[in-house]
């Protein structure tokens, strides 16, 4: 009994480390504009989150938001507010909800939801169907990075 429990726990953390922890967008509980629990159980990595934030094929957050912490990069967008000091303005649970599905916080926003079920969207290109813009772990990583913006 003890052994199998251990084995199960081990298997679960191995899966999570491999990024194969299979939470689906539909399983994420958004309540009152917050997501209380980590999507993966693995703490976010702010260094990777910083990369995902800037990467045009991933978060591409810089397309819309200025961020003084990335002063070395050219062309910060002006569609959304500057993210300087954003960790002071929101609780982590709110930021997680905003990343998972921005419309749960700002109903009519242009900001994409990064962990949304593609079946709820219109005319998604076939190669992106069944996929989310970010993986669950990338959401946690970006969140960890945002929490450093004080």
């Amino acid at each position, binding site marked *: 009994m003890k052994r199998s429990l251990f084995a199960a726990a081990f298997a679960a953390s191995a899966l999570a480390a491999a990024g194969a922890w299979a939470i689906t967008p539909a399983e994420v509980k958004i309540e*009152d*504009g*917050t997501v209380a629990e980590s999507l993966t159980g693995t703490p976010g990595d702010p260094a990777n989150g910083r990369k995902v934030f800037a990467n*045009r094929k991933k978060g*591409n957050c*810089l*397309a*819309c938001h200025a961020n003084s912490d990335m002063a070395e990069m*050219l*062309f*910060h*967008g*002006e*569609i*959304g*507010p500057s993210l300087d000091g954003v960790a002071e*303005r*929101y*609780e982590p649970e*709110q930021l997680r909800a905003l990343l998972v599905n921005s419309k749960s*916080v*700002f109903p009519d926003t*242009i900001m*994409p*939801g990064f962990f*949304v079920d*593609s079946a709820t*969207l*219109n*005319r*998604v*290109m*076939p190669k*992106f169907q069944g*996929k989310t*813009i970010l993986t669950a772990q990338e959401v946690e990583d970006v969140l960890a990075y945002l929490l450093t913006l004080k």
Partner: protein
Amino acid sequence: MKKTLMATALATIGAASALMADPADIPLVIEGEEMISSVKAPDYIPGLDTAYSGWLFRSEETQALEIDDFENPGMPAVDYGLELWSTADGSEGKSCADCHGDISEMAGVRTTMPKVNENGELWAMEEYINNCRVNRMGAEAWKRIKSPEMLAMTAAIGLQSRGMPMNVAIDGPAEPFWKLGEELYYTRVGQLNMSCANCHEDNYGNMIRADHLSQGQINGFPTYRLKWGGLGSIHRRFKGCMKNIRAEPYKPGGPEFLALELYVASRGNGLSVETPAVRN
């Protein structure tokens, strides 16, 4: 917690709309002729007060290329179009000039495209051109997006209307097409879940990374795009914007893009035709 969230949200919205800036109102003068590059938007476009040419949003270097025909990199294609105008083709051995006379007879045509034909279908310039080719000349249809001949001909015909205000009809038989176009314009699509309006109505004047967002007006098409290294059509541009938001584009020349073309054209009714415009 909820209260602070609401407060931040409100502050944010205020900040975001304060950012939205109208472009500097500098005159667009092409070869000595002043264009209408900003005009009061039509009443049936409640989301816009003023319609602005995309030229106003481009860098000085790009702007300079459009005001001088010798600098305009789209002009060689126009010359090719002029040549094709009087070149016989197809089983009937006729050229466009044989039926229509000088290409200057086409002045004004671009301002009303797309429009409903006598059979009640919505046609853009490309459909009219291919109809002449297939049914009057016995020639092959030109491909809508890829054919250099189609781009050259639409550019040469468009240039005949340069300076004239866009004036597409949206009522009568055009109304159902316009309504469909309007619906498509505001429908969010793709993995990024955005509509045309999210970028071109709510955020024109803002930078999206390195791009200065315009209103997405089509009065300058076909447009020479530095990124394309050549002329491109309206439907190619629509397709590109849809792919950028990871949406499955509609078919070029299909009913959705034709309806969207009519609707987008109507958002710029009153702006001068600028064909061939130059963009980055």
